[in-house]
């Protein structure tokens, strides 16, 4: 093969390598979107968890428990530590 053929082959190889590089970079960057999506999902789940914790704490608050039907139906008993 002469010098022209060599040059063409080299240019082709460079182009091929460049193309490979670009496909890989594009593919890698596309992971960025997946990562971003997963981050958003994680953030949403964390928010939901926090909301549930707050709801749970509010449901167990002393004011709410004191005003519940169960609490209202309780009857007083004689304290054991008190002399009547």
């Amino acid at each position, binding site marked *: 093969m002469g010098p022209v053929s060599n040059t063409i082959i080299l240019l082709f190889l460079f182009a091929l390598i460049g193309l490979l590089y670009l496909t890989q970079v594009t593919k890698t960057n596309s992971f960025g979107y997946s990562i971003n999506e997963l981050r958003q999902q994680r953030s949403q789940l964390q928010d939901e968890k926090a909301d549930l914790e707050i709801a749970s704490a509010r449901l167990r608050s002393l004011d709410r428990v004191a005003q519940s039907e169960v609490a209202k139906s309780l009857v007083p008993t004689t304290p054991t*530590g008190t002399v009547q």
Partner: protein
Amino acid sequence: MVGRLFYLQVIRHEHYRIAALADQQKEYAIAAERGIIKVQDGGRQTPIVLNEKLYTLYADPVYVKDVGDTADKLATITKGDAKQYASSIKSNSSRYVVLAKRLSEEQQGQVLALKLPGVGAQAINYRTYPQGSLASQVLGFVNDEGKGSYGVEQALNNDLAGRAGRLKAITDVQGVPLAASEDNVEISPQNGDNVILTIELAMQRQLESIMKAGLDKAKSGSGSALIMDANTGAVKAMANLPTYNPADFFNVTDQGVFNNACVSSPLEVGSVMKVMTAAAALDLAVIKPDTAFYDPGHWKLNDHEITNIEEVGGPGTRTIPQVLDRSINTGAAWMLMQMGGKTGSVNKQARERWYDYMVNRYQLSKPTGIEQGYESGGTVPDPNEGFALELAYANTSFGQAMTATPLQMAAALASVVNGGTYYQPRLVDAVAKADGQTKKITPKVVKKGVVAGHVSDEVRQMMEFVVANHRPQPPFASQYSVGGKTGTAQIANPSGGYYKDKYNGMYIGFVGGDRPQYVVVVRVNEPKIGGYAGSAAAQPIFWQLAHMLINNFNVQPRSH
């Protein structure tokens, strides 16, 4: 053209690289989540401060098209004032006009669904309090700058706040980071520590209820009370009235209510100090529990008379338990005089010895180091410097001319009745790190041998004698050990001397069986009912609290 390309791509490479990076590279701060606060709930822990994502509604007046219509629509969702919104948008003072704060997720969704030009909602983490105003002054709040103010939030701000992270990345046009850049930097945020307090939820609630009822009955506008574990220094309940809701701190007009008066507001404690004077004199072996002495009914020191309340009567022979039971000022001064070995004078030796007990053993005049903002140390006069020292020191023997916080008195009393160990008062039981590790806080011994063991027993018996003689209603069952002492202190007038008609009531006491389990301190400011403030206003609150502890909090009765 080749030359131009060479110039742009090689010679000017750095310039264009920086210009491109400035456009493509973005830097974000990743907020750390503030740690939550939990309290004890009968053997488990329950959150009392949490984080809630709420939304701040804002407008950019440049892009708002129909101000009136926008304001009306927003006000319908937020239940706000449409006129106020319209006025804020028209003022055009900024490109970021805050219209409303703390909108819920649902409200935020409704606002965004309207697609109003120039209107947006920004997510912000706020503190939320499932138990409302309970223990508000112990907790403190987080201000609009995200900084802890007052209480635990202030004292432990650095631990609770955590450290923000950072993301520096090449992004696409929408700001999404691209994964392929080797220049990307991501530093994860370090979330704040979760703090677990020693506060017992149900006890705190009952303390606040009993105190409120007690203050109403005593016609007092304010007061404080706390319950401490006598054998560890752990504060189990602590409250002040009036109080506030920390979720609404920005609506509070009197900032005085932010203070935890139990730790930040020292006062002349009055006759409760006689217990400490008796303990010091017993420990120095200058008196015995059965010592009887002649009380002249008054002492003249530095040309001033020290006298007693009318009910004590004139001169006579007294015993040490009587000094506490009948709250005899001249008896307390007499015990102090014995520390210097000379009746009739509070000499240098008496002052220095008593100062040593107050400062180096009872730890008065020093902040305790409890995890609270704005703690005050109180004052104890110097034994050798100052005016009218004999009189001043005689006054300290019954709790005047010196100041201490209710917390200091609780810790000092605990050290006297628990056998002689001063534990540092604390509110933190454990710290849970973001990595999952939990560090349990162990009781810290500040001083051992505050008083001898036998002195501790003797003082307990005397305090039990005082309670029995004051006939609590209902009385306490004999298998429990309940002791206490009243205190009524005149209030210092800022322009000199004391008010003739203004008093604070105090009560210090303990509850237990073979050994004291809880120490209780009650303070009632300026009660407006008849009788002495300590016995008429503070003592009934203590009785109620003691019964509450015995009935609900597993006080171990005497073994025989």
